[in-house]
């Protein structure tokens, strides 16, 4: 009798019932689509982080330097004695990327021992700057070139600008070559996490765990090609020769690789950063621990900058950021509004349907049906509409997901600020200094998981139950005497 009655009643008002179910479906479908879309955007953001910091990195720890540090780079261009005039020179300087302060290597072990941390690895990102050329000849004007800051290029005409404080060289200054490349110090015992983890080996090999102080280097393929290095060649780093053992490319289309990778210990030595690192890569034991680990690290290192994928997301600009903002603000509110509207419509229609069955329910009560039995009937009708709405909502949500997958828009993300000039001025042609802007392109998907389907059906059921509760309350207030009402 229970199911027969439900079925017959829904069939009688099938148009209304379908409208209610459809309303719930649209509200629920929108929630599913927006949630799937937001999930896709979040996945894209993870891809961005992983391509920048390597798959498996959940948190990075750095410390920004105060401005007073990292003063102007001076290369001691003053030839000093006359004897050196006209001679060729070459100077190399290896420093941490400007804006990054080094952290003690002990911090890495400290972080590794925190609760929720699976692994922590330190890295050192450096820039090597090379200046080479010929010392200037003294000129008749007597204006010998004093210490020149990097960034000055040459002019070889006879124009002199006496009295000017610019560092325009005087006549007969030979051209000066300035080149730079980025160096990453890699913990050879843990290459799975850290700078190398965002790269793919193309030729040769990467470090073995015993090569802590061996002068071997892994180069980025593009840098090697540019400068005609191959596996087996020698590359001069800070005056010493290193053997190239392998070439790598960046994975996931990012531009975040360094030019040269060497063992961490050597990187520390050449940059006067003994037992120091300037980046710590942290892997959490599980995604749910990330927030907790972040706060623990901040407690241990109050001055450090601790960045998770979520934080990175807020620095991201470009179409990925717009997409994520769209999902989180407009999309979320739209979905919530649609769901509330759907619930309201379902409640109203259910209550009005009950109001039109006053005599019917009054009669049943007069026949001895308990109130809860009548309420159960109303709830049953409502739940059925909820289930139908849920199924339709899932279909709508999946259709939305297929549409997104079909069009699969490519979103771009640019992370970090463009390189800010250090106090000494940036030499022309210098590419990324550590924190330079990096752009990643990702495809947007909107995955619909089983949990999402369960959420959809659950929401629709909730809507049905809510409407049923309202209708049931109305039905419970009917009296048997209503069966005897003369006026309909």
């Amino acid at each position, binding site marked *: *009798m229970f199911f*027969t*009655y439900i079925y*017959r*009643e829904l*069939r*009688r008002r099938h148009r209304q019932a379908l409208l209610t179910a459809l309303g719930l479906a649209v509200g629920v479908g929108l929630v599913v689509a927006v949630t799937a879309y937001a999930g896709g955007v979040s996945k894209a953001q993870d891809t961005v982080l992983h391509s920048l910091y390597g798959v498996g990195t959940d948190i990075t720890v750095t410390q920004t330097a105060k401005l007073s540090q990292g003063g102007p780079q001076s290369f001691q261009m003053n030839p000093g004695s006359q004897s050196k005039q006209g001679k060729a020179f070459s100077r190399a300087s290896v420093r941490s990327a400007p804006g990054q302060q080094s952290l003690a290597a002990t911090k890495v072990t400290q972080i590794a021992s925190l609760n929720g941390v699976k692994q922590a690895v330190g890295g050192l990102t450096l820039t090597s700057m090379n200046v080479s050329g010929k010392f200037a000849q003294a000129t008749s004007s007597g204006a010998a070139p004093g210490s020149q800051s990097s960034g000055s290029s040459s002019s070889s005409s006879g124009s002199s600008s006496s009295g000017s404080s610019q560092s325009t060289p005087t006549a007969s200054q030979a051209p000066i070559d300035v080149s730079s490349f980025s160096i990453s110090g890699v913990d050879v015992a843990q290459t799975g996490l850290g700078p190398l983890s965002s790269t793919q080996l193309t030729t040769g090999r990467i470090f073995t765990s015993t090569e802590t102080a061996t002068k071997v280097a892994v180069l980025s393929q593009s840098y090697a090609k540019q400068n005609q290095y191959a596996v087996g060649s020698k590359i001069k780093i800070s005056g010493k020769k290193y053997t190239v053992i392998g070439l790598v490319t960046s994975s996931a289309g990012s531009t975040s690789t360094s030019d040269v990778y060497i063992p961490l210990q050597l990187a520390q030595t050449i940059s006067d950063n003994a037992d120091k690192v300037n980046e710590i890569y942290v892997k959490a034991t599980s995604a749910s621990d990330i927030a907790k680990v972040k706060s623990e690290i901040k407690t241990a290192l109050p001055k450090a900058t601790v960045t998770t994928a979520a934080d990175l997301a807020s620095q991201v600009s470009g179409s990925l950021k717009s997409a994520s903002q769209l999902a989180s603000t407009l999309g979320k509110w739209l979905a919530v509004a649609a769901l509330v509207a759907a619930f309201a419509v379902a409640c109203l229609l259910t209550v009005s349907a009950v109001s039109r069955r006053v*005599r*019917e329910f009054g*009669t*049943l*009560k*007069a*026949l*001895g*049906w*308990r*109130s809860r*039995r009548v309420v159960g009937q109303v709830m049953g009708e409502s739940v059925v509409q909820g289930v139908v709405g849920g199924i339709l909502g899932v279909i709508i949500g999946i259709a939305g997901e297929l549409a997104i997958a079909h069009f699969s828009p490519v979103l771009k993300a640019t992370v970090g600020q463009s390189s800010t000039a250090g106090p000494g001025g940036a030499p022309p042609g210098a590419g990324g200094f550590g924190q330079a802007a990096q752009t990643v392109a990702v495809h947007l998907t909107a995955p619909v998981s089983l949990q999402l389907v369960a959420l959809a059906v659950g929401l629709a059921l909730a809507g049905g139950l809510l409407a049923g509760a309202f209708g049931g309350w109305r039905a419970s207030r009917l*009296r*048997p*005497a209503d*069966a*005897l009402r003369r006026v309909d």
Partner: protein
Amino acid sequence: MLYELTGVTKRYSRGRKTVDALAGIDLTIGEGDFVAIQGSTGSGKTTLLQMLGAMDRPSTGEALYDGRDLAKMGEGDLSELRSHSYGFIFQAFNLIPTLTAQENVETALVPWHVGGDERRRRAREALDGVGLGERARHIPSEMSGGEQQRVAIARALVREPRVILADEPTGNLDERTRDDIIGLLEELWRERGQTLIVVTHDTWVASRASRRIWLDAGKLAPEGDARPGEEPQVGDGSAETDEAVDQLMPEQPALV
């Protein structure tokens, strides 16, 4: 006495307006009585039926049914009485429009929690008892008024209640069907010895009863007197007699 009502009143209030639907009723009804309750609109006869049918409680007074005071019973106990001891018949039939004739009769058995097969069997039997066995699978909209009321009677009787309460059972029917229905009720009443309480404005229907009660403005009029405004009848008031008389006698001025 099956029913003993003493000083029963029913007051309805809406805001500051109050209406005394029943203004002090003293009434007894014996088991097996066939009682007709008459009165004009607003006299309180429907309200009295509600009291007797445990559909509502009196505001004041005592209403004993089988020794139990209906005025003091909780909703659960009243519901129990309605499902086990009473059968109702309504003026507008009050069948569930989406259910078949048999299913409508079955609704009366839902509170009994009998198994589906048992329920169907009893419902079928009750329908047969009112001569509508072959209409079991029809829904109300496919049946005439008389057939629907028969289904309603089957529904009221399927539980073999002690009391049958009918609110204007023939109010929506034509005269011939009215006669059939009342005839059926009478027959069943005689067969089973149930107490039959009928609210009606139809004097012919009332005349079939063994007792007639008049209500006026919530009070009982003394029984047995001639009622003002009642027309003297030629014959017994049934349709058949009316037609026969019309054929035999041309229109004549009413006799005093």
